[in-house]
């Protein structure tokens, strides 16, 4: 009887899980060894034309691929963060509770100003291309949703490509994760708008690989390129 009951419960659980999974945004979500943190979006406002939009996804994006050596070589050739387009001066919020561990750490890129937060759950986050040196101090505790900086432009003009570059790393800062799987957001809705539409670069030997927001590879900083495809599409047009 107990076996029968357990079996029924397991069956119900599997039915529920299967159904739930179908309706989650994170299709094909990878299981993360560090667990799933309750991270939120790095803004205090809803997306829109006068706030922020998804500018570029994490992973093997066509834009990232085109600069796999010059810009993203340190991250194994892929765009190892999420870009959010936003006008300069838009408040940037911490994606989770944590402690400020670095301010303007040039060795981690994302000039002209950046910020790193250790979330004390195995993850750290990096906020890049900030407008000015963030007005926070190393060791300061921050809460999820707390404003920690202002968006800027890596080209320093605020007219070229103003955006926030956000990374989720492990606490050693040597590994970057697919942040779409770790930040609770309606990525399917967000990817319909803005300039995301170019999609992901194809390896023509395996053209289905890495073609969704949710199946992009994690990377190890300093590792070899993982997307230097022999045969690729779109082509390497000049």
């Amino acid at each position, binding site marked *: 009887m107990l076996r029968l009951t357990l079996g029924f419960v397991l069956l119900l659980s*599997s*039915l529920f899980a*299967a*159904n739930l*999974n*179908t*309706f989650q*945004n994170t*299709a*094909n979500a990878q299981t993360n060894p560090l667990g799933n943190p309750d991270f939120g979006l790095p803004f205090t406002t*809803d*997306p*829109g*034309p*006068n*706030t*922020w*939009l998804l500018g570029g996804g994490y992973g093997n994006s066509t834009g990232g691929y085109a600069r796999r050596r010059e810009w993203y070589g340190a991250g194994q050739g892929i765009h190892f963060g999420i870009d959010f*387009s*936003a*006008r300069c001066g838009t408040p940037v919020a911490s994606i989770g509770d944590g402690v400020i561990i670095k301010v303007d750490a040039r060795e981690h890129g994302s000039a002209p100003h950046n910020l790193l937060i250790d979330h004390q759950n195995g993850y750290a986050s990096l906020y890049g291309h900030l407008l000015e040196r963030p007005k926070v101090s190393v060791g300061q505790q921050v809460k999820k949703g707390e404003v920690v900086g202002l968006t800027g432009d890596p*080209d320093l*003009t*605020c*007219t*070229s*490509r*103003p955006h926030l570059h956000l990374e989720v790393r492990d606490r050693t800062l040597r590994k970057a994760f697919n942040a779409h799987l770790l930040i609770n*957001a*309606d990525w*399917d*809705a*967000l*990817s*319909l*708008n*803005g*300039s*995301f*539409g170019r*999609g*992901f670069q*194809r390896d*023509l*030997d*395996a*053209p*289905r690989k890495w*073609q*969704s*927001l949710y199946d992009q590879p994690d990377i190890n900083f300093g590792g070899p390129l993982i997307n230097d495809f022999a*045969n690729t*599409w*779109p*082509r*390497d*047009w*000049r």
Partner: protein
Amino acid sequence: MMKLKLFMYLAGVVVALAACAPRTSAATPTQAAPVVTFATSPAATEPSPATPATVVVDAASAPAANSQLPPATSNQTPATSPPLFTQLTTGGCCVQPFFSPDGAHVLYLDRPGSDAPVGIYGVPIAEPLAQPTLRTDKLGPFSANMAYSADLVNGQTFIESVNGTNGEGERFGISNGGRSVSFAPDNQTIAWNIGQDAGNFDVRRSEIWVANLDGSDAKRIATRYGGGIVAWFSDSQRMLIGGKAARGDAAPTLSILDLRDGAVTDLFSSERMRGYLLAPDDSHIVFFIAQARDETLDGTYLLQLSSVVSGTAAPQPQRLDFFGAYRWRDTTHLLYIPLKLNLPSHELWQLDVTTGQSTLLIPASAESQFKVGNGDWDVAPDGNLITYINARDRNIWLAKLPSN
């Protein structure tokens, strides 16, 4: 007609039963294609084939009337027939689907197995879940009717006829330094940008070149900064271009360039313009402005071109009261998915640009299969179907739209 209704009903029951079962494996190509009828009531689990579902627009959720277009009436036109959702592929295949020029197939780039060639595969819309077939080993970019494709071989651009095999078709080497090309609708002319490799994106110099299809008679026809070719007009004699005419201009300008005499007609100037989409008959263009320093400019715009081209009116963009993704359905109807987060599925609306009236075609509901993934959706040439990546299962689906 009765047979069709019976089929729809049976298919709906199959889907309802399938939805109750754990999804442990992807459907195989031999399975019947699920065809899901839209139900207006969230509680409804079975289709009611005898009673066409009508979409009742909730005025509270309808986008506000455009202040410059005629206001939408409170009795907005409900859809006259329900949308149908049909799964086309299985196994999470594939991305970036698009319609064949005749609208008979949905096409996508794939290599379905290690022993299969890479190419553009297709599924007939009349045979959902049929075994996909290789349509061409050319990968594009394609001309509008897919007669020609461009490719890059050892750093040089080539144009090939799509149906040619074993060297039988046309093949032209283009001396443009390995740039991608844009085909004019008549397949007689090509164009490309030669852009600066460095510098701030909003002021990078871009030369616009045109040539005959075979690359002959190449000439530079314009230079822009932070822009370039936007789209061809259907007469193949004019194109939309964007960017700053001079590096020091305060903002980029959207313009019409006449290839016959090089004349430029400026349409609209603003910083942060993006997302240009020309109507099939060249009568309108839609675009958006986002995150301009003057935030009062931000929004979606519709610009009527016919009166501008005829010289009877100055360019006067109208701001639309929605923001989201959009595609032209036909010459007068713009489909759009408003940017709304955390809905159970996506909404699909239709704006009649001649009246300013918006109609809700596909409401959000837990039963709807219209949840677009990867930002991938395309409209059939006849405007009656859209194909998209279903975010729920990552497969390619069709949605049959209510008729106008």
